[in-house]
């Protein structure tokens, strides 16, 4: 596989001298009279194309097929030659399409039969062709830049297809010598230039064309090495369709193409709409699409002569698609196609059917009854591809099922949640370059990886490993906290979620705590909330470094989850677990230890349950149906409770610890306005919620007040 083989650069040199204006002497009837209107009218006389017209349309057909199958990296430079060389386009990719070439050819027009034949020569074009082959293409440039010191690995090879009317074999030899000399000269020039490349290999394809019915003055000659750089071959071809056939053969040779005929295509008849006949359509594509046939020597599929491999076509049978069911086929190759007869009705019916989004499976006709689907035709974004499907035995047959392997016995994976996760992490193309703040180019794929990293910082795989992700109430927070940056609204939503949870705890709502692997009813309600709060904290802590707003969510969480002292007191009655709690709180600090935390948490839950069962009889049973305990405060009051500093009651280890952290932190920043302005250590928190416009941060709030 070489990118820069001879077919990377093709130069067409078409003779534009006066004799090319001669008729090819092959008539075309263009006035086909429709039946029942023919009485008394004599059809117009048939017309015939000139040698020029035949040459141009055949070379355009060559380019059409090439551009269809290789829209990139295979380039054409078109030159017409008369009293000078006219280079119609450049190697740039923008110039590589039929419309550009057609417009340029129209500007040149047909040769002038009255021009002085002495001034005109194909040599001008050939010299220009060599010159243009030395010019570097954007692909060569890119490869050279990429390889740096290995730039010499980038090859410069090319092909010159010259269509002319030569006078004799010696005239042909003169043309070859001229190309040979010019290459020699230009290679010298290129050696001293950064913008030019020396030609390493050049294939000269000389096509002598002459009117039908005349004798050829030039003889065919197969490919021959004229020098280490130049090979040359001579084709002597009658004009008209013979020339077109020759160029069709050549494009197949030059670009390693092969032909497939789709047979049995059902198509509605124009005249009788309710009947359908079967049609065949011949497609060209890279020959690798036939690799299976070539290797296994299934010659019965097509012609068999080795001499004329380009007359061969592999016949494949159309299988009418049953449904639009989307399936992932095992496809070993996909190759762009080009219909041989692009405008014929069967061809355009087939291509339109495919362009509308349907796929067609193709079957190998076999003498035996077995049906082998070997290919598929399908379009992707307006391009049709022939897919090669694997039809041989799979080496992966009868693999162990995933349920038999590691993790295969676990039944409560969060399949739906992960599905949702995948949808959120779908990819989309970003065609316009984006830049980071520092001005460097941003790679969208790296952004995608970053997002996956953020979204998975805390992502329990199984339902029984998580509480918060089983709670609808947590969704508003969990879905935004993973974001890179939060809006004020996001922060508000997170805070609301937290208040809502506080409210739930106050109402003693049940939590979806898993009881898998535990005896009895599972942990007590307040223990459940503790597990839930810890887990939520783990999630939020995993993201605090994303932005300052994430930090604020954590602050809110820490504020709300620390209970009013009397409640703490009530909870602790009959239990002594401060040490353990302290340990677990510390573990929570690092989300990367999240797993070990979870394991220890669950273990602890199991251990404690034994103790709790003893104590259970003394404690008021809380169930979802039980009335609210009277000693619990309404939500508003919780809002008003100063979250970090406690003025009364015994101090828990948590509050001791957070006090210490807060003191340490307070040295690093200005004190909050609320705390400074508090009365009796009481300040109204989140005042800005009541104000109309949400202020940016509390610190800003303070600044404005001063």
């Amino acid at each position, binding site marked *: 596989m070489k990118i820069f083989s001879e077919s990377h650069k093709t130069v067409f040199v078409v003779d534009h001298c006066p004799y090319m204006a001669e008729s090819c002497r092959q008539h075309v009837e263009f006035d086909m009279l429709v039946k029942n209107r023919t009485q008394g009218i004599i059809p117009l006389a048939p017309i015939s194309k000139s040698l020029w017209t035949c040459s141009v349309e055949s070379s355009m057909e060559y380019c059409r097929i090439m551009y269809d199958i290789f829209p990139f990296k295979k380039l054409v430079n078109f030159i017409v030659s008369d009293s000078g060389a006219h280079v119609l386009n450049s190697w740039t990719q923008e110039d590589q399409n039929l419309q550009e070439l057609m417009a340029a050819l129209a500007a040149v027009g*047909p040769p002038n039969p009255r021009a002085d034949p002495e001034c005109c020569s194909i040599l001008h074009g050939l010299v220009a062709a060599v010159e243009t082959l030395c010019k570097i293409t954007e692909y060569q440039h890119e490869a050279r830049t990429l390889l740096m010191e290995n730039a010499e690995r980038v090859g410069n090879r090319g092909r010159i297809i010259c269509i002319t009317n030569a006078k004799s074999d010696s005239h042909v030899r003169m043309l070859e010598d001229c190309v040979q000399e010019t290459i020699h000269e230009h290679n010298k020039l290129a050696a001293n230039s950064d913008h030019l490349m020396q030609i390493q290999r050049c294939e000269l394809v000389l096509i002598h064309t002459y009117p039908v019915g005349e004798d050829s003055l030039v003889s065919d000659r197969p490919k021959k090495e004229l020098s280490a750089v130049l090979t040359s071959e001579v084709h002597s071809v009658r004009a008209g369709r013979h020339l077109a056939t020759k160029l069709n053969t050549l494009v197949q040779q030059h670009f390693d193409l092969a032909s497939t005929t789709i047979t049995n295509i059902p198509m509605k008849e124009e005249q009788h709409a309710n009947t359908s006949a079967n049609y065949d359509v011949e497609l060209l594509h890279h020959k690798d699409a036939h690799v299976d046939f070539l290797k296994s020597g299934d010659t019965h599929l097509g012609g068999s002569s080795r001499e004329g491999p380009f007359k061969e076509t592999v016949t494949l049978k159309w299988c009418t698609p049953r449904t639009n069911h989307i399936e992932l086929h095992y496809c070993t190759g996909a190759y762009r196609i080009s219909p041989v007869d692009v405008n014929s009705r069967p061809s355009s019916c087939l291509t339109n059917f495919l362009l509308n989004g349907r796929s067609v499976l193709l079957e190998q006709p076999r003498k035996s009854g077995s049906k082998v689907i070997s290919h598929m035709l399908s379009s992707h974004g307006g391009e049709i591809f022939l897919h090669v499907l694997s039809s041989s035995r799979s080496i992966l047959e009868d693999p162990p099922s995933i349920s038999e392997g590691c993790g295969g016995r676990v039944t409560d994976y969060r399949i739906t949640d992960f599905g949702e996760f*995948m949808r959120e992490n779908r990819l989309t193309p970003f065609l316009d370059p984006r830049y980071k703040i520092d001005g460097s180019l941003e790679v969208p794929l790296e952004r995608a990886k970053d997002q996956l990293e953020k979204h998975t910082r805390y992502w329990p795989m199984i339902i029984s490993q998580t509480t918060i992700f089983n709670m609808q109430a947590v969704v508003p927070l969990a879905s935004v906290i993973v974001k890179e940056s939060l809006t004020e609204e996001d922060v508000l939503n997170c805070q609301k979620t937290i208040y809502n949870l506080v409210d739930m705890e106050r109402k003693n709502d049940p939590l979806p705590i898993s009881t898998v692997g535990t005896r009895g009813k599972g942990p007590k309600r307040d223990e459940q909330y503790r597990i839930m709060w810890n887990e939520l904290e783990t999630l939020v802590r995993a993201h605090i470094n994303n932005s300052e707003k994430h930090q604020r969510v954590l602050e809110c969480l820490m504020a709300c989850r620390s209970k009013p002292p009397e409640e703490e007191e009530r909870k602790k009655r009959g239990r002594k677990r401060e040490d353990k709690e302290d340990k677990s709180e510390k573990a929570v600090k690092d989300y990367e230890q999240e797993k070990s935390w979870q394991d220890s948490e669950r273990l602890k839950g199991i251990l404690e349950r034994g103790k709790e069962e003893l104590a259970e009889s003394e404690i008021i049973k809380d169930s979802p149906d039980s009335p609210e305990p009277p000693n619990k405060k309404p939500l508003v009051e919780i809002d008003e409770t100063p979250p970090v500093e406690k003025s009364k009651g015994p101090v828990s280890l948590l509050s001791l610890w957070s006090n210490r952290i807060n003191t340490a932190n307070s040295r690093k920043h200005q004190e909050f306005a609320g705390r400074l302005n508090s009365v009796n250590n009481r300040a109204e928190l989140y005042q800005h919620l009541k104000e109309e416009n949400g202020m940016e941060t509390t610190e800003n709030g303070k600044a404005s007040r001063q």
Partner: protein
Amino acid sequence: MPTVVVMDVSLSMTRPVSLEGSEEYQRKHLAAHGLTMLFEHMATNYKLEFTALVVFSSLWELMVPFTRDYNTLQEALSNMDDYDKTCLESALVGVCNIVQQEWGGAIPCQVVLVTDGCLGIGRGSLRHSLATHNQRSESNRFPLPFPFPSKLYIMCMANLEELQSTDSLDCLERLIDLNNGEGQIFTIDGPLCLKNVQSMFGKLIDLAYTPFHAILKCGHLTADVQVFPRPEPFVVDEEIDPIPKVINTDLEIVGFIDIADISSPPVLSRHLVLPIALNKEGDEVGTGITDDNEDENSANQIAGKIPNFCVLLHGSLKVEGMVAIVQLGPEWHGMLYSQADSKKKSNLMMSLFEPGPEPLPWLGKMAQLGPISDAKENPYGEDDNKSPFPLQPKNKRSYAQNVTVWIKPSGLQTDVQKILRNARKLPEKTQTFYKELNRLRKAALAFGFLDLLKGVADMLERECTLLPDTAHPDAAFQLTHAAKQLKLASTGASEYAAYDHNVTPLQTDFSGSSTERL
């Protein structure tokens, strides 16, 4: 990739090996010992490999067809008889047939040839085969290179000195060369003994049969996996990029795409991704493939109960009908998806795309794929009813853009007919008439086919004279106008024959009293 073991059972393999110990060994015993070691390794670490056993002398025989049952292979090793002379070529032809019948021509196979370096005598000997290599026709082609992607490993039950004393080594090297350099020759280091045979087969195992272990990652979610079969290094372009690319042992998921969008992409190879449990030494505990070993079974059972990311990923990919795009190396990607076989079993599978910045034209450049959250609005739509894929190429292909090709007369006739048909329905079909007219005009100008313009002009003039009395007066005006314009263009004069110029309908007004014309 499947393995064919080709075992030499000619008489020369019964040559005794001089050993200091009491027991007498023959070379075939050494060979069987080495193969036993290979089979045992495969049975534990490479269980999914299909292996066949062929024995040969002047004839060849398929002793064990492709199987994963290593006991059968082992048994066959102990039931081998001794035969006559070595005839390698016919054995290699046999290998070709066996592999092609079973796997076709696209699946890579490893051929392990076990011989003593005595290459036979006379017709059918390797020397004879190589000497006549250039005089072959298509019908009796030499079997190398194998007609399928292959590696040929030659295990010699002889040491280097012995092989070099004759031309055996040269001949064997030619074999590898003939297989496009794909393969390697192994010889015994030092004296012929069990230990040295083991070390030789150990080298083969290291080279070709070590399981490929990797870590599958999706952000912080990870799993240890074995990728089977081993992904082979890939050469992108032997000229520009001659160094084979090897896939990373970190398989990093970069995002997800719907199956409908990825749309049966072409792949280099397919691999099973099997979650594995690694113990502290990093050895594999089990891939979950059932095994007789009891210890392993209980280890498997424990591993089965520990949540594994592969299982989660597989489940969700299956339910959602999506694939995960995975990065295999710099500018190399692949996809992970759920693959179900007919028996309700399904598995996590990985396919490798061709290395390069843009393996699938309909996805565009891989590096340009980013998270949907970066887009202004969700490209999949709020109701998940859209898709940003496939990408449309800049230029349409010829079959999608109504190109003009007149190589066959029928192409030209159809285009003329279209104009004529519309001409007869003027003025209703004015727009289509001029559209077709301009299309023909453009093509005729590009091809320098000015006679056609003149011909069609004549035809339109004739149509004008044939208009029925009931025809709309505008029809005659338009036909005359169009014919005149084509005539002008057919002169080739630059002012009338500009390619970009379009013939526009004659402005007529039959509605009012004035028949004002512009």
